[in-house]
């Protein structure tokens, strides 16, 4: 195993990792070069070892884009399965944090969800973070694991100390409801829960689904829910146009058209760079989600 990157300075999320690695004779490598970090990790994984490459902020992952999309994603396919880099997991903190601005707040999941051969996974909270990360590391394909940075200092839970994995490619119904389906992932699940609470007061019962694996995603769980409720909102911080929400809306309307009572609606970030002073109004917050729930609930065919 080799943990590549340098991280702890900012988030102290892994105080023990360095000692852990060194005490077990594992590699622990610190570098400040994203394209190198990804490529080095690919090299390690290409000879069958495990590499956990960390990009300090997902906003800085783009120099690694060529290596991840042109190399990691295609390693197995182009060689007819003679070589692969399944041992590679790339972790990066993503998303709004309150004061991050353009370069400490981005959600780049859509870029990597468009590269066949990669997988993209996003946990919503502590328990999911451990289970999904272990599953991602052990999965025999390169995985981009985006961690909600807003939750680093803000999330607490009783996380089981034993080894456990949560299945990839499985969405989780976090809350059941019969009236409308709310689909999201990562930090946004908290927002959906709060919006649902507001809607509850109007007698609207929301079903909330956490996608967990963004790509390839679990369309079946989404379809089952939308066929039941007939109404759907997809919500994420990333800009609305060409985001993950666009894909899900398209796929769901293809499969559930005749079950829909209202158009599928996206409540997402605007098509602007992530702002600093305007973060408050940029984000798809609970009031915007609540408003969409209201509007969709009023439509009756």
């Amino acid at each position: 195993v080799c943990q590549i990157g340098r991280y702890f300075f900012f988030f102290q999320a892994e105080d023990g990792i360095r000692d852990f690695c060194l005490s077990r004779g594992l590699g622990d490598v610190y570098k400040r070069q994203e394209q190198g970090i990804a490529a080095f990790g690919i090299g390690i994984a290409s000879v069958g070892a495990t590499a956990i490459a960390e990009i300090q902020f997902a906003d800085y992952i783009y120099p690694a884009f060529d290596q991840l999309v042109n190399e990691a994603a295609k390693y197995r396919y182009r060689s007819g399965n003679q070589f692969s880099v399944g041992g590679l997991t790339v972790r990066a903190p993503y998303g709004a944090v309150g004061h991050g601005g353009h370069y400490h707040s981005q959600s780049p999941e859509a870029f990597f969800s468009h590269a066949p051969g990669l997988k993209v996974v996003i946990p919503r909270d502590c328990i999911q973070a451990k289970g999904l990360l272990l599953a991602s590391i052990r999965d025999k394909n390169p995985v981009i694991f985006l961690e909600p940075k807003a939750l680093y200092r803000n999330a607490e839970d009783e996380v089981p100390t034993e080894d456990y994995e949560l299945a990839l490619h499985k969405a989780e119904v976090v809350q059941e409801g019969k009236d409308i389906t709310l689909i999201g992932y990562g930090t946004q699940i908290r927002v959906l829960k709060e919006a649902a609470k507001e809607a509850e007061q109007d007698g609207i019962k929301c079903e909330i689904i956490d996608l967990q694996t963004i790509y390839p995603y679990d369309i079946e769980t989404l379809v089952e829910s939308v066929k039941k409720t007939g109404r759907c909102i997809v919500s994420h911080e990333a800009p609305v146009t060409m985001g993950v929400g666009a894909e899900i809306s398209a796929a769901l309307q293809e499969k559930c058209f005749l079950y829909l009572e209202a158009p599928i609606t996206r409540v997402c970030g605007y098509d602007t760079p992530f702002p600093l002073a305007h973060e408050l109004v940029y984000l798809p917050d609970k009031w915007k989600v609540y408003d969409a729930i209201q509007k969709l609930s009023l439509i009756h065919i």
Partner: protein
Amino acid sequence: IYTSKLNFDSVSEKIPTFRVIELKGKVIAKKYDNTDTATLNKIYEKMVQLEEMDMILLQAQRQGRISFYMTALGEQACTVAVAAALNDIDLIYPQYREHGCLIWRGFTIDEFAHQCASNSRDPAKGRQMPVHYTSSKLNFVCVSSPLTTQVPQASGAGYTFKLQELDRIAVAFFGEGASSEGDFHSGMNFAATLGCQTLFLCRNNKYAISTPSDEQFKGDGVASKSQGYGMLTIRCDGNDAIAVYQAVKNAREYIVKNKKPAFIEFMTYRQGDHSTSDHSILYREEEELKSWAQNNPITRLGLYLKKKKYREIDEESDKELRKKYRQETIKALKSAIEEKKPGIHELFNDVYDRQTDNLEEQTKQLREHLDKYQGKYNLKNFEQL
């Protein structure tokens, strides 16, 4: 060390080029004239095989029988002699002009032909253009078109071999043009600072497609850059098979003993076009080609072997040898082109280790589409399930 002189000099001395034999095969470095004759003869034979195979497959592309090809004309020593000096288990990360290493390690003419013909016998299932070879059995990572991406990957692999305490190195090949990419900097710096068991081999063949090397950099070639990273650096005559062999053998020993990387810049010349999509006479002079033709790696080694009476091949048998390789290549190519293309289902395999739902669904969609519109697609050349 401080100085009171304000001198804006760049480095004044060029790094010298290591050479063992001259153009006519005369030995100038007796100390390194100790390679065993069996190896030298095999290097000679394999370089000839490479040249003959290249000429036939190049013609095959011109005749429209394969879609694309890249030759290694003039650069045979920088791959064949390299592979001879490495251990077979050393993992090669190629650019795209190193099929000489595959020939040395035993990739068969049929295997080359299957990949170029993109047929069902290609283990990579016709997924990539010709010359994008790979063989895990022969420790040759898959060729990919993006330049230089393999260099930092080789650093990662070499680092892993070090941690695993293996007598094994990773070898990154790249051209002098590729050394201008950002990945070159990544790979070299990571390797030097982390102590990776990686050998960096630059084929400075004077052209990056149409860009001549004097427009590629203003410093002293690529070797001077390597020195900048604090790495062991050698510049070597890439058309001197013996020098190549000796340099790589010594570099390999250094790497494994010291657990540090090394770099060799091979000075050579790209005799052919960059690829079949290139027409190099448009940007190079006939004289330049003629003058470099005097410095041919196969001829030089042949003259050395003849001088030393080590050569197991005389003029007659050399002709026969070349004829044999030509005929083998022609036969293999003909048969490869007649093979079926990989089955349609191979389009969807190997994206991941296991099939995902979206790909299963798309497989089904395509199958249904092809059944319905059978007459509109010419599928008889594809292997049926």
